């Protein structure tokens, strides 16, 4: 925070140390409420096994919350909310209908790719217009290996590794160029990959695409929406943890040094070639994982699913979600999934003259992007931070707290 906003102010002047016993009991009540809701609204009759699973989840979450709290009851509040979120996410398949469940599954998938892109763009400062190619690589690897009879334990690592290798290749231009040059070098690579996928009929099925079957691990088949939901969720959590750990590691610090100034980073002994390539490899690997899960969710892949529009969508995800934090990946993914649904929902309730206009969706999509960048340049995560700080400092919040220093000239000519 401090070095993002250059104030540190918001963090250090917390007036009320949150946490403590009152909050603990309130939390307990909330968890109990979820339990009651679960018992009431679950679409299937819950049997003993279900309840055992729920009990284990609760035990794990409470254990985590209690462990994180120190003697003063501080430090637990973040873990508390994440615990709540975790319980909610785990119990979602019991409560939500299949439509919403599959939408959330897509949020997880996009968020996996989003974590990768935020690592690359937000932490390392390297732009990529080629992430669709990484997703395509992951999707096709997983699909083709599955057709050979391998299960997820083979296909997923293969998808990640192959995409990461492709990421190294596509990242090579990053060693010698930045900004728009890099963006279009990656785009050129991605376009060529897309064209190869479309033309290599014998392997990929060309423009006709090909069909996947249910994925399985060691004989256990993920043959329902609920099972796919848990699979995507588990992979997302693993990716997120990996991303957070990279951020804390020396690798992550090297990324941030490169982002802030390549010259300074190099002077400090950061090997630019190694770390830029690593950033591309990690990001591409995550995109490849997302692509593999995406392919299994859709059951059908073709080159048309992985065009420049997907790359742009992923960039929009990262920028709208907020590049400063991994939270942005989730916010952005939710945005990407929800907005088209929301538009098509409102379309039906509008008068037909307006609702049937062609291009309404892409128009609103573009408008939202513009408004976000103008009014909320830190993305949804930035807005979230502001709201949080407002309540933490209440009633002492100052409007200028998050004001960006506006520079007169941002120049890429001198980096």
């Amino acid at each position, binding site marked *: 925070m401090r070095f993002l906003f250059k104030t540190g102010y918001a963090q250090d002047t917390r007036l009320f140390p949150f946490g403590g016993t009152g909050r603990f009991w309130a939390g307990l009540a909330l968890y109990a409420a979820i339990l009651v809701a679960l018992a009431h609204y679950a679409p299937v009759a819950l049997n003993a096994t279900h309840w055992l699973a729920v009990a284990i989840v609760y035990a794990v979450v409470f254990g985590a919350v209690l462990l994180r709290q120190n003697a003063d009851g501080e430090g637990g509040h973040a873990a508390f909310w994440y615990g709540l979120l975790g319980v909610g996410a785990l119990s979602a398949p019991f409560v939500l209908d299949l439509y919403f469940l599959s939408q959330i599954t897509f949020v997880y998938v996009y968020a996996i790719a989003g974590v990768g892109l935020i690592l690359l763009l937000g932490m390392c400062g390297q732009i990529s217009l080629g992430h669709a190619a990484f997703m395509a690589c992951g999707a096709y690897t997983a699909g083709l290996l599955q057709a050979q009879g391998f299960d997820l334990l083979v296909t997923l690592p293969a998808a990640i590794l192959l995409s990461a290798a492709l990421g190294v290749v596509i990242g090579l231009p990053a060693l010698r160029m930045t900004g*728009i*040059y890099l963006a279009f070098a990656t785009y*050129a690579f991605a376009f060529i990959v897309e064209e190869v996928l479309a033309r290599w009929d014998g392997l990929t099925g060309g423009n006709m695409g090909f069909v996947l079957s249910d994925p399985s691990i060691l004989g256990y088949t993920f043959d329902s929406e609920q099972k796919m939901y848990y699979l995507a969720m588990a992979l997302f959590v693993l990716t997120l943890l990996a991303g957070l750990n990279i951020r804390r590691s020396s690798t992550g610090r090297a990324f941030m040094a490169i982002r802030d100034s390549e010259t300074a980073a190099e002077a400090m002994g950061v090997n630019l070639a190694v770390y830029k390539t690593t950033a591309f490899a990690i990001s591409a690997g995550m995109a490849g994982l997302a692509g593999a899960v995406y392919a299994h969710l859709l059951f059908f892949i073709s080159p048309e699913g992985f065009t420049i529009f997907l790359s742009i969508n992923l*960039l*929009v995800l990262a920028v709208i979600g907020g*590049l400063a934090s991994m939270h942005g990946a989730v916010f952005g993914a939710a945005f990407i999934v929800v907005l088209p649904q929301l538009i098509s929902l409102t379309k039906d309730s509008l008068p037909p003259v307006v609702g049937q206009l062609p291009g309404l969706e892409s*128009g609103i999509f*573009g408008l939202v992007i513009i408004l976000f960048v*103008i009014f909320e*340049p830190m993305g949804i995560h930035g807005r979230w931070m502001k709201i949080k700080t407002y309540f933490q400092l209440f009633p002492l919040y100052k409007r200028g707290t998050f004001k960006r220093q506006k520079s007169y000239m941002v120049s890429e000519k001198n980096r």
Partner: protein
Amino acid sequence: MDRVLGRIWWLLAASAVIAFFSPPVLWLFGVMDGAGLTLYLQQVVSGTANGCVYALVALGIVLIYKATETINFAQGELMMVGAFLAFTFITMYGFGFWIGAALAVAGGVLFGMATDRAIIRPVVGQPVFAIVMVTLGFGFVVRAVVSMIPGWGTDTYALATPFSGADLRLGALVVSQDYAAIIVSTLVLVAFLFVFFRYTRLGVAMEASSENQLAAYYMGIPVKRVYTLIWGLSAGVAAFAGLLLAPVTFIHTQMGFGVVFKAFPAAILGGFGSIPGAIVGGLIIGIVEALAGFYLPEGFKDVAAYVVLLVVLLLKPEGIFGRVVVKKV
């Protein structure tokens, strides 16, 4: 390492030039027959014409980037709006070609200036990604709005010009007058821009603001107004490109998207920020595309531009005419 790459670069550039000029030489020595040469020249001419359009769009992108460091992904949409305006004035209102064309370019200029004031000005000073996102989003909005306007919509339209249908015969070579018009008017426009930037006060002021904004401001140049004018100029060039492209292809809402993804490689090929570079880059992309489409198997036409871009960038990361500025600490 860099010396080796530099040698490879010169070797490749030289062999590309040799390959480009080899058919006439082969013909001179009697290895290639006249028909083969004609086919080759035909491709070069149509490639040059397409390349001119890429070059003009790339030129607009470069003008804006040089001055404001804004990477404008909506340049194709500015071109598309110009083409639709031309269609409106010429075909729908029947103003006649020349008046309609002038009105379309003027409309494009106004549209560009309005874009700068409404959309770009609020985000100047923000990170580059943010501005890229804004122009991308703006492109989406413009496409959507154009498709909603009654009379424009999602249909495709043809634009008739005084040149349409007629051919120009140069010996065995048949050049459609539309192509000839594209090439000639691009030459004229580039000459005009050269004179403008070299000899007029406004042109010099624009050059100065793009070189160093702060210094230009201290010298009394109204930098903000100059920016608006540069957006106007760039959009005017884009509208001109739309006017040239419309008779060759058709006018529709998606016409800008395809061109802008060729114009960016063109601008980058020439060294982003270099005006002659944008022209040369556009011509290279156009000609390579045409030749690859004719002589290579199907599928290479679309990829050719990007393969050339990658090869050039890997060997010469700053582009052909780009200049390297190293940060001094």
